[in-house]
């Protein structure tokens, strides 16, 4: 019996293949966007885990100095002499004009067994590893990428994170110009007769890191992606809901007949569930495959984004991971169940002998619209509350969700209200307005999807636009020098500076050191006291005479990220050297880490081993090209070692654009999904509306007029939806800029609006609505009269 009932239900799709395609497409698209995002996140997290596990960092404790500076060799030797099993590691980055490489220098003779090293094959040359010029073990991807110049020979090896090279500690010391170990790896099992290692040294013992700093830093980015994926999934489910609703409406009589012929309700519900499960399996599988393709296409962009925003190195390729494929299928089933639950309840409650009620599923009652409006108001209140008192990224996203869902739920009431304000003149106009009002419940789900997609688009593009505008202005302030030069070494840099000094207005050394502040990675810069900084550096807040105080070497500036994260204000003391007061806070967009600036003299006192080999040159702009040529020709600097301001800006802007490319792609995909949702709903209504249109046709309105009216109505509803999406999108942008960005990235941006972007989005919305309405409209215009007269013949 179940089999027969199932076959009977399934026969519907055989007769309506287009509807089946629409349902499967909606479900597949929803799954694709969700699982694509999950695939990207899974791949990135796996890369972080691999990086965190390099040399057993996820299993081994390490000893380091509290200020993050290299360890004195004497401390290391003392620990070894006392019998402790510790192994030195030198860690640092080599930056070249074309790329950078993280160098990890290890001492293979003392490395603990738990620090599983790279996989070595028969081609590994042990002698070359230990002797000059050394050997760098890198992954194939790293070897294929842009690398700094003058590196030792490379050996391709598995299990090494991207943009990282493992080498002997002596090679690392030479390449990085650093003799002392960055930290000491501590073997898990120490000799029993020794006291705990913390009693034998003043160094700080750090527990194994199961999660890397990068993984923590990028959490917000992945949460952002997940939120977008979820939004797309939600929009996709509108399609599924509409398609299942249509199928239910069309099969209402079939279900009644089946029941009249003695099929128990339970059997019908079971058959419906089985049918949906089969569809979910088919569409989910297609969706996961599509998701894989989308993720593979977006992966290079994501890698670029993560590199640009966080300095996180992941490979731009995607590996198939069964876990996200399974989770993708699982969410397809859950989504299908969520989209179908209303239909299942209606089927279960449908009385066997109730009179036929065409479009009953689509006609939400006035009470339902009122309830939705109340729910919308409650959600808006919740969003406001979260915006005012909520803390943390989750609260910020909850605020976004409340805002978006509230707007979607309030849409039917707002639309009905707007239509009730229209006072038409004439019988036909009255019918048009009344008929449009009657369409709203049926179209509301699709219009909600369109509203969400448009609002997300307005919100995200306003955020990106505001960011771009602020970022460009900020770049102008930060990149005031005419030329930027990278010398091969600090010695050559010093020589160059001496030679150039008479010919230029100023030479500003660029010198920095990595350190830990508040137990997180941070960077400290030393700057020369010069009008370049005093006049242009973008300070958000400052003490009086901040630059004078900085020049004395007894003060620091900190970036906005550090200030917000650690709740630091001007006048607070920060733990650098013996403690320095903060005299200013500056904006530092695009940098995920905390940063501080001190005077050059103070920097060189604190970090005597770090000498500048990069510098900025002030010169009259007209003379800059000639000087650049001279530097390359006379001093033999490689072309990329000398860059002008425009090049650096272009590079920074390229990184910026790359950063938001993924967001833009997801934005467009979501709008596309909303367009399909609208199409599905219009097709649904087109099939169900004949009984309403046929009488109007019969009393003297041509099919062409009715078709034109349908098109005009779709465009009008899209216009109304756009107008309502505008304030929602702007509110969304405000939340993104004021709450999400601050929580996720640590900086706050002024909001700017871009009305010309709205116009192009409006045109896009009209295009989507027009395309969606085109098919049903043409069908109506060409419908044979016999099909319309059939309505009267079959009227019950």
């Amino acid at each position, binding site marked *: 019996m179940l089999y027969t009932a199932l076959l*009977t239900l399934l026969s519907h799709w055989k007769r309506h293949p287009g509807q089946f395609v629409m349902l499967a497409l909606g479900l597949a698209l929803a799954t694709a966007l969700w699982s694509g995002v999950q695939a990207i996140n899974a791949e990135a997290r796996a890369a972080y885990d691999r990086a965190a596990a390099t040399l057993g960092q996820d299993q081994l404790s390490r000893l380091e100095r509290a200020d993050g500076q290299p360890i004195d060799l004497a401390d290391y030797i003392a620990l070894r002499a006392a019998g402790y099993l510790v192994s030195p590691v030198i860690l640092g980055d080599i930056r070249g004009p074309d790329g950078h490489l993280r160098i990890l220098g290890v001492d293979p003779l003392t490395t603990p067994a738990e620090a599983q090293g790279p996989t070595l094959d028969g081609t590994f040359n042990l002698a070359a590893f230990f002797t000059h010029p050394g050997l760098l073990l890198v992954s194939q991807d790293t070897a294929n990428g842009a690398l700094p110049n003058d590196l030792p020979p490379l050996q391709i090896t598995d299990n090494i994170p991207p943009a990282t090279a493992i080498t002997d500690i002596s090679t690392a010391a030479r390449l990085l110009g650093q003799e002392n170990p960055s930290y000491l790896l501590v073997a898990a099992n120490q000799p029993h007769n020794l006291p705990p290692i913390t009693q034998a040294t003043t160094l700080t013992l750090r527990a194994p890191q199961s999660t890397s700093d990068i993984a923590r830093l990028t959490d917000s980015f992945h949460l952002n992606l997940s939120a977008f994926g979820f939004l797309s999934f939600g929009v996709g489910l509108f399609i599924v809901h509409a398609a299942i609703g249509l199928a239910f409406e069309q099969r209402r*009589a079939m279900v009644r007949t089946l029941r009249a012929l003695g099929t128990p309700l339970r059997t019908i519900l079971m058959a419906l569930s089985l049918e949906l499960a089969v569809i979910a399996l088919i569409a989910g599988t297609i969706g996961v495959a599509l998701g894989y393709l989308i993720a593979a296409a977006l992966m290079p962009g994501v890698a670029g984004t993560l590199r640009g925003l966080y300095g996180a190195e992941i490979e731009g390729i995607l590996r198939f991971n069964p876990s996200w494929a399974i989770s993708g299928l699982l969410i397809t089933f859950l989504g299908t169940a969520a989209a179908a639950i209303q239909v299942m309840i209606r089927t279960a409650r449908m009385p066997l*002998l109730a009179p036929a009620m065409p479009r009953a599923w689509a006609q939400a009652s006035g009470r339902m619209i009122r309830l939705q409006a109340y729910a919308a108001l409650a959600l808006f209140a919740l969003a406001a509350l979260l915006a005012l008192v909520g803390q943390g990224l989750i609260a910020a996203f909850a605020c976004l969700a409340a805002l978006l869902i509230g707007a979607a739920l309030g849409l039917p009431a707002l639309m009905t209200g707007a239509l009730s304000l229209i006072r038409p003149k004439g019988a036909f106009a009255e019918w048009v307005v009344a008929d449009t009002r009657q369409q709203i419940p049926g179209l509301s789900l699709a219009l909600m999807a369109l509203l969400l997609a448009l609002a997300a688009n307005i919100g995200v593009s306003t955020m990106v636009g505001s960011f771009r505008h602020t970022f460009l202005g900020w770049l102008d302030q930060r990149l005031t020098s005419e030329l930027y030069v990278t010398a091969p070494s600090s010695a050559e840099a010093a020589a160059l500076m001496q030679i150039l000094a008479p010919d230029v207005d100023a030479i500003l050394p660029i010198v920095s050191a990595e350190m830990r502040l508040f137990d997180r990675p941070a960077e400290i810069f030393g700057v020369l006291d010069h009008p370049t900084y005093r006049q242009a550096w973008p300070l958000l807040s400052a003490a009086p005479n901040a630059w004078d105080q900085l020049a004395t070497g007894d003060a620091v500036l900190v970036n906005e990220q550090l200030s917000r994260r650690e709740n630091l204000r001007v006048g607070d003391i920060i733990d650098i050297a013996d403690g320095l007061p903060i005299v200013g806070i500056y904006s530092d967009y695009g940098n995920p880490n905390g940063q501080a600036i001190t005077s050059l003299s103070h920097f060189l006192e604190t970090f005597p081993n770090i000498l500048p080999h990069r510098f900025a040159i002030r010169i009259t702009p007209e003379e800059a090209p000639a000087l650049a040529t001279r530097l390359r020709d006379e001093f033999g600097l490689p072309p990329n070692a000398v860059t002008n301001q425009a090049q650096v800006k272009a590079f920074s802007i390229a990184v910026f654009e790359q950063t938001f490319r993924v967001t833009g792609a997801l934005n467009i995909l979501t709008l596309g999904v909303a367009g399909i949702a609208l199409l599905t709903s219009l097709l649904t209504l087109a099939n169900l509306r004949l009984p309403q249109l046929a009488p109007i046709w019969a009393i003297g309105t041509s099919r062409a007029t009715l078709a034109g009216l349908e098109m005009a109505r779709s465009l009008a509803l899209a216009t109304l939806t756009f107008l309502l999406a505008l304030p929602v999108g702007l509110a969304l942008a405000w939340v993104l800029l004021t709450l999400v960005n601050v929580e996720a990235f640590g900086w706050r941006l002024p909001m700017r609006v871009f009305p010309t972007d709205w116009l192009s989005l409006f045109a896009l919305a009209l295009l989507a609505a027009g395309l969606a309405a085109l098919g049903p409209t043409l069908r109506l215009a060409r419908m044979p009269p016999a099909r319309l007269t059939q309505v009267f013949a079959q009227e019950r």
Partner: protein
Amino acid sequence: MSDPLLDLRDIRKTFPSDTGAVRVLDGVSLQLNAGETLALTGESGSGKSTLLHLSGGLDQPDSGQVVLEGQDIATLDDSARALVRRQRVGLIFQQFNLVPSLNVGANIALQARLAGRHDADFTATLAARLGLSDMLTRYPEQLSGGQQQRVAIARALAPRPALILADEPTGNLDEETGDSVLTLLLDLVSETGAGLLLVTHSPRLADRLSRRAHLSRGQLEV
């Protein structure tokens, strides 16, 4: 004398309305024997269709008994009444109520399959008797009203039910087609030995059945 096939005992049924409860059936008692054909007539709103629905277990009375082959089906739950309909009742509606996505052959076999009593030979014989053999692969929308009603009759008879309930089966057909459809229905009912309860407005059609009962204001005038 053997027990009647269908024994309706003091049936009462009301429906709620905006102006209060409307009593549709007020103490109706009626019997139908196997092989007997009974026409149920009455003006619109007299309760004919309601009585038919109660007889087939599609609905339940407020009070009274609906005894089918010795079993009171009015007291059964939804699943049990579904089983009764599947196994023992054949339904023919004025609107035909065919499944539009199944072809004629599948529509005819539908109830028999649901009941687990599908007999391909018998179904083929029914189709042949009803002049449907050449149309088995067509879909309902490709058939005329008379053809659709013949499919509905075949579907109702295919599981060999004890009771056939027909609600204005010729109401949507012209007089000539309606006559021929009724002739076929009566012939087949007679051959299968089932009981037929047929609701009609037409006294002319009612005269062709073996017995006639008239409902007026919820009460029976035999």
